[in-house]
């Protein structure tokens, strides 16, 4: 039972971080119709800048906003300098250009910072916390969950309840109509892109101590983030949250509980071979199944 609870929390934590990436990805995709493969690279930039700022500022909590601001600025430069000229192009050109951006940003980080940097959680949050049911749970992961939930709530309110959110949603369901209604689309796009990058940076800073800050970390999380986007339905924030939690929990439980489950049902030489393979494909199976059942994702944006 405690194992189940612990892994459930791990899944929630991973899912919420995936949501931070997927939210930006799905809005950029839904509103600007841009496939941005370099989204994960912004997450990497955020983590590297944070790891660089911690020794300089002497505090994680000063480095975090610094990294968020720097990443958002990088995003603004990218949007104005390159991505803006890609909105009108077909998806293939966008794929090639943003793939090129991955290569450039990866090596740029390597040139400036080296291929990896140490980043650890603040001293005070390094230990475990006692939870009910006798569960000892790492304080850092608990904090990630809290921040993730808070940001998810804020994002939900922002998108669903504010004027800016209404503009973004209008853009997601009908871009031409919303620009005909007088929305300053270029400025909205820049702002949305920077905002998405800021969310990536937060995820990068928070996950850095758990997953290591290194070149290529962006590609590792890009695929799960894209899966979240299509599971939820392109352009849908609520869908992204649902998809992120599903992917996070299925992946985490798959990795830990599946093997134990198979041990009960199968002879050990089978289960130790099939367990890891099944665990690795659990989230892909989940996505394939959902897309066959609902080809537009779980919670598609209306009007598409």
């Amino acid at each position, binding site marked *: 039972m405690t194992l189940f609870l612990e892994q459930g929390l791990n899944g929630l934590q991973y899912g919420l971080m995936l949501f931070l990436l997927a939210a930006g990805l799905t809005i950029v*995709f839904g509103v600007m119709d841009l*496939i941005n493969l370099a989204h994960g690279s912004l997450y990497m930039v955020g983590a590297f800048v944070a790891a660089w700022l911690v020794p300089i500022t002497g505090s994680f909590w000063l480095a975090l906003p610094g990294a968020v601001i720097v990443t958002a600025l990088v995003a603004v430069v990218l949007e104005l300098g*390159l991505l803006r*000229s*890609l909105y009108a*192009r077909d*998806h*293939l*050109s966008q*794929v*090639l*250009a943003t*793939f*090129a*951006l*991955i*290569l*450039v940003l*990866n*090596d*740029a980080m*390597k*040139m400036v910072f080296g291929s990896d940097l140490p980043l650890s959680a603040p001293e005070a949050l390094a230990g475990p916390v006692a939870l009910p049911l006798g569960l000892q749970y790492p304080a850092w992961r608990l904090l990630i969950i809290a921040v993730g939930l808070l940001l998810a709530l804020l994002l939900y309110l922002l998108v669903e309840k504010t004027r800016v959110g209404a503009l973004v949603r209008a853009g997601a369901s009908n871009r031409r109509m919303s620009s005909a209604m007088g929305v300053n689309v270029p400025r909205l796009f820049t702002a949305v892109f920077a905002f998405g990058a800021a969310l990536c940076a937060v995820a990068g800073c928070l996950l850095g101590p758990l997953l290591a800050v290194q070149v290529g970390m962006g*590609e590792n999380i890009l*695929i799960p983030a*894209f*899966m979240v986007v*299509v599971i939820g339905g*392109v352009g849908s924030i609520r869908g992204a949250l649902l998809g992120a939690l599903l992917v996070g929990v299925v992946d985490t439980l798959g990795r830990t509980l599946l093997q134990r489950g198979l041990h009960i049902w199968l002879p050990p030489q089978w289960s130790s*071979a*099939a367990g*890891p*393979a099944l665990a*690795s*494909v659990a989230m*892909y*199976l989940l*996505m*394939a199944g959902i*897309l*066959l059942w609902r*080809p*537009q*994702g779980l919670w598609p944006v209306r009007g598409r």
Partner: protein
Amino acid sequence: MRGRALLAGAAWAAALALPWVLRAAGADFYLSLASRILVYAIAATSLNLLLGYAGMVSLGHAAFFGLGSYASAVLLSEGQQSLALHLLVTLAVTGLAALAIGAVSLRTRGVYFIMITLAFAQMLFYLANSMKGWGGDEGLRLRSRVLLPFGADLPDGMVLYYTALAVLAACLAGLALFARSRAGLAVRALRDDELRAEALGLPTFRWKLCIFVMAGLVAGVAGALGANLQGYVSPNNLHWTQSGTLLVMVILGGAGSLWGGVAGALALLLLEEVLAAYTGYWSFWTGWVLLAVVLFAPRGLAGLVRRRE
């Protein structure tokens, strides 16, 4: 038109002469690079059929490349060296896989299709990783090669080079014929407007599945050639970054033009080779070159040649 025919003729002549030129210049080392380019050119051409001609963006094409390479590697590890057997098994394995994956994936479109093809390829990647008997995550080293009929008369590396060249020539000839045929017209019609094509009475699903399987078969043959060339297969042959590389080659070279896959494979692999000789940051500069192509040559490298006329 004549300029293009001349260019193509010169390219083929150069490709035919290359091994002997390299041998004369004492630069045999580059023959394996040239063979690798041919293998990737075949795989990229097969993806070009899927992507450029039929409009299906697959991010799982490495699945078939990898399956082909594993089919050949596993047969060799069982001591089977007959060309006919290798061809038969490779085609059977990749064809059945493409039929199954295509039948499921083609129910979706657009980015959903991209992701579902990726998912199937990743599942095979993890499957290959867990196959302990066939090398698992360490891959499988080949102790022998497929026996090719004219192998005895040529030095070692040349056999594979000329085989790959012949396969590539056959693929390009097939693609050119296809593009001009009624079938090619039908497929391009459904690429440009699927709804309208369906309204005209085209069985669009069947056409798409057919193309998907064809592309898978050719990629499988490329994979088998690649395995024999490298003398080694690993699960990385199936990884999504491999699919991504093929995709980048096709878009870079020019999706939907006959030479797109070849141009892309040639450009990307040569670029890597040259840059890696001068700098450790070769992917940085490759990235800038790719960006320049996107911005200034929207139809890819093959489009540059075409536009000049």
